[in-house]
């Protein structure tokens, strides 16, 4: 399973953190520090994989953002890279040419999209259409603030 996903900028500013197992706040801060320093220190065109403690760290840079995903030892590295890519695609599809600012200002949306895609550290839905459909459905619910929940069933 996946253990955590971090998004941070080239300056090491954390933009999103998702923890799939309960970890203390102190430990989280330590991991974030370790990950940013480790990943940012990598030379360009190195491989995207690192060993860290008993985990594999898969990272990839998209524009100014680094995506850093920790997976358990038996998991597949290449597929983890594509998990990152698919998430980027989902963000891109939702925001349209997603950039770091979109994630800063709409962080809650970035979490919602991630939640549709992954759950408990496993893949929930790989289909872009399906994920987008649920996100859009909830957005339509948001626009109509007065809708009460009976109407929600239409979008299930």
């Amino acid at each position, binding site marked *: *399973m996946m253990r955590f996903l971090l998004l941070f900028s080239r300056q090491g500013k*954390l933009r999103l953190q998702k923890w799939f197992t*309960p970890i203390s706040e102190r430990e989280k801060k330590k991991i974030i520090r370790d990950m940013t320093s480790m990943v940012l220190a990598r030379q360009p*065109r190195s491989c995207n994989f690192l060993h860290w403690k008993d985990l594999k760290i898969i990272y990839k840079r998209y524009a100014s953002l680094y995506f850093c995903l920790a997976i358990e030892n038996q998991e597949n590295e290449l597929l983890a890279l*594509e998990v990152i890519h698919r998430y980027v695609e989902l963000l891109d599809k939702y925001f349209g040419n997603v950039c770091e600012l979109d994630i*800063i200002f709409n962080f809650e949306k970035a979490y919602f999209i991630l939640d549709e895609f992954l759950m*408990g550290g496993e893949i929930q839905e*790989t289909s872009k259409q399906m994920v987008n459909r649920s996100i859009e459905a909830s*957005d339509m619910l948001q626009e109509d603030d007065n809708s009460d*929940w009976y109407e929600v069933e239409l979008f299930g």
Partner: protein
Amino acid sequence: MPAVSKGDGMRGLAVFISDIRNCKSKEAEIKRINKELANIRSKFKGDKALDGYSKKKYVCKLLFIFLLGHDIDFGHMEAVNLLSSNKYTEKQIGYLFISVLVNSNSELIRLINNAIKNDLSSRNPTFMCLALHCIANVGSREMAEAFASEIPRILVAGDTMDSVKQSAALCLLRLYKTSPDLVLMGEWTSRVVHLLNDQHMGVVTAAISLITCLSQKNPDEFKTCVSLAVSRLSRIVSSASTDLQDYTYYFVPAPWLSCKLLRLLQCYPPPEDGAVKGRLVECLETILNKAQEPPKSKKVQHSNAKNAILFEAISLIIHYDSEPNLLVRACNQLGQFLQHRETNLRYLALESMCTLASSEFSHEAVKTHIETVINALKTERDVSVRQRAADLLYAMCDRSNAKQIVAEMLSYLETADYSIREEMVLKVAILAEKYAVDYSWYVDTILNLIRIAGDYVSEEVWYRVIQIVINRDDVQGYAAKTVFEALQAPACHENMVKVGGYILGEFGNLIAGDPRSSPLVQFNLLHSKFHLCSVPTRALLLSAYIKFINLFPETKATIQEVLRCDSQIRNSDVELQQRAVEYLKLSSIASTDVLATVLEEMPPFPERESSILAKLKKKKGPGAVSVTELEDSKREGGELNGGGDRGPDTAAMASTPSPSADLLGIRSAAPVGAAPASAGSLLVDVFSEAGPIAPSAAVNDDGFLRFVCKNNGVLFENQLLQIGIKSEYRQNLGRMYLFYGNKTSVQFASFTTTVSCPGELQSHILSMHLCTKPVEPLVEGGAQIQQVLNIECLTDFSDAPLLNIKFRYGGALQNLTLKLPVTINKFFQPTEMTSSDFFQRWKQLSQPQQEAQKIFKANHSMDTEVLKAKVRQNVTPHSIMYRLTLRCSKDSVSRRLCELLAEQF
């Protein structure tokens, strides 16, 4: 601020985020945040009821502040209120807040669980999914207790929407991982397995993670999943890239599901049913074939997805380890990747090949790639890839290519990254030993190792070369000659001096015939290094010198002169001084016969598992070195060199050394054997040390007696662990702080301590209860943890409570038991009285059993010590004996106290 904000867009939030981003300094940011927190607090506390939108906005701001790294101590209640909102967006923010800021406040958990319960029974799929997500995100025991029975029902119910099924499957998986005892599959098992047949690919993808986890834990109950998985896999593999619509990822049909299916099959042995197996082999062949087809897209996503399946298929082939044809094909495929332009693929190919190398079917095929791998080691720009290459070389090494591989690894060492040098050194040392046919090659290799990377050569490595030289007489002359030559280098590493000193001390006579290496030349060479060395090395050299006196009587005068000089005999280091004094005395008073007996050549070391291998295992953590490899080396190591495990430090023949001369290997077997020796032991210890080590292996009470009269200090110390105590006593109560320090750089896992009171002690000392929480199970390298013991003394006692410590260091379980220095005298109260009062009371205690007396030899130099209380002490000056007399109203106290105090003089 971006103009685009889909959905509702909370303007106030965007403004706030924008403000934070405009802050020029950390202080400004904190100021802005504090202002916002004050504002939100007043809004939440205000008289006016907030509408849902405002509540949502403020909760979202709090969440943002928390994610910036600031503490949030309010707002939880408002977030919980949002959960019961009928508006989706409010509910969603509420759940997000709860998921991120879990609070174990039980009152809150009850409210949260209530909201979740309502949403789960709402039959509204969107709400149900939110609730399931929240359970999975929090995943606490309380939630498992509340929902573990409900979720399987939702998962298998016929009318559950697909999206809810997906969430339910993964939610259940999360709960199963946190509280497996609460998730009872039983009746649901077969229906869950049949989710593999579900029409909806998303459902299968989610469910298979659950099924895989359950299969790992209960393979028998879930074994029907094998045939279902094979048929599902076969359908995907043979489908055209367009068949699966949106589940096709860059022209690869359902890569995630395919990998998960292949992973599930790795929980089981090859299918017994011929038809199923045939179908599976067909799938695997198809996957291997597809790797040879031209890519359908140039995008890296296409090749990643396709190769992810390929690597997973190769893992399955390796797992089965029964299809030679497939294994060889897999190996060839990986061989192609070794030269691929994608760094990621080269990395993964090197990694996978490591496992292939251990299969008898593919070992030879892997070996054919040796040149490519060596090339990778030399030319890869990325250190992590080079490290994989080194790993693979190690894995593919056998007798046929050992010399080449060891030579390459040695030359790589000269430029290797510092982070991996120590591991490389261990690997070279292991390979050199394991595949040595010719022991002069082995000696050369290790000496080269010390020359190239001396700082990274751990004690285990140089101990080992000495053990082997001692055990094999055909290599001793060569070893002596080689170290002699190596020592002639103007600057040589201290480890080289250690090996040189030891070997020349034992076998210098074998090369003494050559005038260029006559005894005096040898001695002068060694002694020229002496002053540059650390204390342990000097101690070793001193032992080598005394051995020289035995080997070459003609060096006696020179060496005695060296020993006699002030820098030796008055050395401020007690160990060096003691050795100098003892050796000087030994050489001048002992007859040649005695000398020859005491300083006889070391006997062969007993055979044991190589300590270097153990060290590598520790370094790599459990599971890194396969069992077969271990057994291999045991077998080969055994028959070839009869390698032993005892430390070759000269210590064994002389006085006890500093802790650096720990008897290796023994450390892991019985850590107490490695307890720090007091520097005061005598030469006669030679004989006691030759016997079985440390008869006190069961309970270590070395430190115990030192604490009779003191409360603070180091109770125990070995190479791994240091235990310090601080204690304070008041009347019948005591408190003891235990400090456990990890001296290594590796963490200790499953660290547990228990205190027990043996025998009748239980009723005498009340409640040695651990007052604080039990110690943390993990002790990081270099870290120290603390534990507090509260002690109450109810009546007098003589035994001491026992402290048992268990932990894992690397792979090995360490277990040690110490006597805690809780003694009866700790609970004494001083009383002032005049001497006449004292003698009056002394006379009152006149019954014979109230008195305890002991006459004993002084352990320490005599000093006029003043003893308080009712202790009389006579010193008989000529015989250096003490007589200690105690009288107490209770006879058991007299006896015990007498025993304890006698040791203190």
